[in-house]
């Protein structure tokens, strides 16, 4: 990380906003983990603690009208792009106030008001959708870009290749960002990847490709910012390999303790949050007290969100039949069954 010495007001604001989002996600994920473990949240849940700098650095480099697709491990990504903790938390609780009205849950958080096109339960499924959003931006003549998050394990699957080829061919404003947290469920790189160096491989598509320290929020920010600028200039897609780590297991239920202790410890030592705090302080962008205040604000907001979510009503069972189709009559005709 190159220390920035003279900080303008804009940078300060940006940094504090990024710090706030890092903290927001960390708190959210910690609480989600605890609430789930306490039996309060249903479904499957994949926690991204340790990876926050990648989510926040990347999304902070976007404009609000840019698009984003995420994965099954999408809490951090979607919050970084603008999903409210209130809406997300209520969704995890399965309440009517959930951002997806309790239909989606942890793996399917989407918020079209924030151009979050969706987390996704299916590995690599976001990539073709991102290509389509990029195509659409280009066709509509906007300079919106699309950020496509996917995991290290996802790279082995067909849609990533198809999507990178199409995006390169059509010079689409898509940023393929691989969140390399070192494992696909239980599977390490040695078991899922023949490709020796994904950055070199990605260059094979004729696109810009770089590797960044995914625990350095500023490094991720810069890489995405550059990729977005290229995309807006019509120079097509980019690939970013962001090296990071998930502290927890693959999902809640997996303690993740099958990984070497030293490895986990080494990565915890690279915790992106204290690291960025140090940069902020060293550069005089804020004081410890400022940052503590942000943390406290976020924690308070989150606790309020949790309380609100818990207090919110559960959906009525019959509402399960809503939201399938736009057309009310044809939809009703299509949904009706014969169950007595």
């Amino acid at each position, binding site marked *: 990380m190159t220390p920035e010495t003279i900080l303008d007001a804009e940078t300060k604001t940006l940094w504090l906003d990024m710090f706030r989002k890092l903290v927001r996600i960390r708190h959210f994920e910690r609480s989600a983990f605890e609430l789930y473990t306490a039996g309060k949240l249903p479904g499957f849940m994949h926690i991204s603690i340790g990876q926050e700098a990648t989510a926040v650095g990347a999304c902070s480099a976007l404009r609000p009208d840019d698009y984003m697709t995420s994965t099954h491990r999408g809490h951090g990504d979607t919050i970084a792009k603008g999903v409210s903790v209130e809406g997300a938390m209520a969704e995890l609780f399965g309440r009517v106030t959930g951002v997806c009205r309790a239909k989606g849950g942890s793996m399917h958080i989407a918020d*079209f008001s924030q151009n979050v096109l969706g987390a996704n339960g299916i590995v690599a499924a976001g990539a073709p959708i991102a290509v389509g959003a990029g195509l659409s931006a280009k066709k509509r003549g906007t300079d919106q870009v699309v950020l496509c998050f996917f995991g290290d394990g996802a790279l082995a699957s067909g849609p990533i290749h*198809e999507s990178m080829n199409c995006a390169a061919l059509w010079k689409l404003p898509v940023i393929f960002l691989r969140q390399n947290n070192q494992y696909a469920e239980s599977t390490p790189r040695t078991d899922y990847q023949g490709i020796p160096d994904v950055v070199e491989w990605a260059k094979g598509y004729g696109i810009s490709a770089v590797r960044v320290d995914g625990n350095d929020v500023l490094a991720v920010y810069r890489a995405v910012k550059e990729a977005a600028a290229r995309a807006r200039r019509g120079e097509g897609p980019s690939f970013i390999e962001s090296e990071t780590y998930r502290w927890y297991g693959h999902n809640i239920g997996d303690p993740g303790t099958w990984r070497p202790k030293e490895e986990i410890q080494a990565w915890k030592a690279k915790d992106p949050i204290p690291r960025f705090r140090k940069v902020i302080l060293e550069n005089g962008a804020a004081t410890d007290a400022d940052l503590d205040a942000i943390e406290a604000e976020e924690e308070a907001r989150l606790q309020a969100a949790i309380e609100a979510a818990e207090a919110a009503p559960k959906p009525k069972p019959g509402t399960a039949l809503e*939201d399938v189709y736009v057309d009310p009559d044809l939809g009703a005709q299509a949904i009706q069954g014969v169950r007595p």
Partner: protein
Amino acid sequence: MTTREIMYREAIRDAQREEMLRDPTVFLIGEDLRDPWGGTYKATQNLSTEFGNERVLNTPICEETIIGASLGAALTGLRPVAELMYFDFVMRSMDAVVNQVAKVRYMSGGQVKVPLVIRTQGGGGRSSAAQHGNSLEAWICHVPGLFVAMPSTPYDAKGLLKTAIRMDDPVFFIEHKLLYMTKGPVPDEEYTIPFGVADVKRKGDDVTIVATSRMVLFALEAAAELEKEGISAEVIDPRTLVPLDEATILESVHKTNRLVVVNEGVERCGWAAEVAALVQKKGFGDLDAPIERVCTRNVPLPFQPDLENYVLPSVADIVRAAKYTLGKVE
């Protein structure tokens, strides 16, 4: 109303053309759509010449990404009409069609609409063997979140496709390779056909035949043969499989008390089973005989024409099934 005789594939082409003229957000995407090729079954001929290569986007061979990208475009303000060159190739895009296109509205709690048409063509009879002649509509109808159209005539094809392109829900639109060259009258004036409304292609009193796509033509031939034997068959084309116009079918069975369901999909767990299950439930008291299914046999499609004909439903099979319901076959 003045009409012209046009081919089914022209009806499909014209529907796309008119909707592209009407709405600048409509665009076509798929493999080999561009002129002079103009689509492998020529259903997009001249469109890239008229509208340019941007609005008729020729893609690489990557069905999962074609459909996924169409979804991405549909979610962000456009109205894609995607072509899967063969119904069989939907297998390369099944996740995109089913887990993404059909479900994103639901999973997001109704936040978005998905104005997306996926066109494809299925069916055997061209000796194209096991991987190029399947009729997989049962799979698609099994997926909540999609509407499914399957027209048998140029008139229905054009009117339904125009409706589909204007709809805000995803539509899976199934054509038939052996219908493209068939002709029929189509009005000069603009028209659309609503989903969920069956068309009685022939009135009759003794037995109801529900048939889809090319099988409607077979059913009409069968009805003509049956007539010679004094049997009056009613032929119903549901035109859209989802939603299904149950009322028209049930009314007919109420009158005839007999039902034959003809569908080119493989019999086991095919679409005809759904219709049979529905009608035995809702029209139980009306049935004087078991509902017969005439479908493709439970084997892959063979290459050789005699074998293929043996496996696909035939006019004779429909005639026999109808007579069977009337107790006129031992």
